[in-house]
């Protein structure tokens, strides 16, 4: 029978200021970026950066709860593979990610609607 390696996924809530040092730290522990995505939860945006370890099959996710105004530093200087993930979060959810190394300037998916998955802004008078 094959050996099964199935550790629990782990999730850590962090602040935007902790993103770069945490990314550097997890990279030095031998993790690679597995995925990054944004999710809309009520009026806030949840960012999830998941890192996978290819020997232990561990998946660790950093969670940042933010809004469209807060600046999020790009991790592309530390993890070049983050380029598409960050461009996607910026284009679809309007996440304010700064200094992406190769910023597609909201043209990754060539969609006409601006930030289609972003929190709905209240109309005047509401």
């Amino acid at each position: 029978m094959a050996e099964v390696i199935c550790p629990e996924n782990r999730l850590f809530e962090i602040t935007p200021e902790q993103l770069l040092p945490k990314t550097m730290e997890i990279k030095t522990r031998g993790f690679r970026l597995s995925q990054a995505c944004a999710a809309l939860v009520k009026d806030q945006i949840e960012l999830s950066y998941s890192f996978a370890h290819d020997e232990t099959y561990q998946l660790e996710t950093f969670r940042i709860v933010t809004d469209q105004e807060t600046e999020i530093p790009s991790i592309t200087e530390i993890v070049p593979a983050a380029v598409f993930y960050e461009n996607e979060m910026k284009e679809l959810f309007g996440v304010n990610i700064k200094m992406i190394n190769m910023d597609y300037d909201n043209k990754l998916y060539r969609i006409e609607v601006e930030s289609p998955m972003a929190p709905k802004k209240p109309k005047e008078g509401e």
Partner: protein
Amino acid sequence: MAVDLSRRSVIPYGPQHPVLPEPIHLDLVIEDEKVVEAIPSIGFIHRGLEGLAMKKDFNDMQYVIERICGICSFMHGMGYCEALEGIFEVEVPDRAKFLRTIWCEMSRIHSHLLWLGLLADGFGFESLFYQAWRIREKILDMAELTTGGRLIASVNKIGGVLKDIDDDMTKAILKNIGEIEEELKQIEKTFLLDYTVQSRLKGVGVLTKEQIHELGGVGPVARASGVNVDLRKRGYAAYKYLDFEPVTSNDGDCYARCNVRLHEVYQSIDLIRQAIAKLPEDRTLAVPVKGNPDGECFVRLEQSRGEAVYYAKATGGKFLDRMRIRTPTFANIPSLCEMLKGATLSDVGLLVITIDPCISCTER
């Protein structure tokens, strides 16, 4: 060293190109015949399917997820169901786990045979392309026999599967995969030993283990560079009951990627045999799942092209708050750009093919 910009030019490559199976655009900065840099552009077939998950009933959404891409259909449906099953905290019946495993491996066989054909077409070996696709028809016949669909199986449901495989079907599967194995052995020699094939594949597009790790490469692309990772080792579905080791190579070139995929077809055949031999007698196919999902779950599967990540989040409504699917090609594009550096212009098409790009999945 000074760069002579007068020798540099930019060639737009794709989205329509004879060698590209799907639309991806590359701006190739070339110096004479050598690629210096490749800048990828996608977005030609973005359909906003993740956004649709926020507006469509989570049960109905499964049928949409299965149609993200024809080749990866079964495993997309399974990944979605596993993510929802994780939120509902339900345990799928054992027989359903084994059936999912069998269909997963059938998907992998037809995906890899499709790729082998495209690779042969890419380096101009038309008869080899026909042979690979001819063999592939046999596994598609088995998909049709067991699920009713040749590509879109649509047999997953949250909590299990919709269809069973009876004894006659298992006999037919075993007979067919035996034939596939024999016929693949015949063309394997051409793929791996033919002089002209080797001259097109060996030493082309080399990526080291360290580069793959840095660039987040997954699947056969990573395993061909010596990364011993295969998410089936996590033991999801029935893989924990089966005996296998990841197929790897250390060369990191196009030849290694071909070698890994070719041997993964044999591995899949072996896994199907093991799964059929251990298929549980209890014919319960699904457990009931009631209510609406409330919670979140990450699921990772080893698709034919590599690691796929499914993330579902819900807050008790019938719509999901988020359904995120990170497909293997999305993760492999940075590796592609790196392997293109230093390649000759004539090898670009071949290198694009060797990551087995699935742009429909990538853009969703």
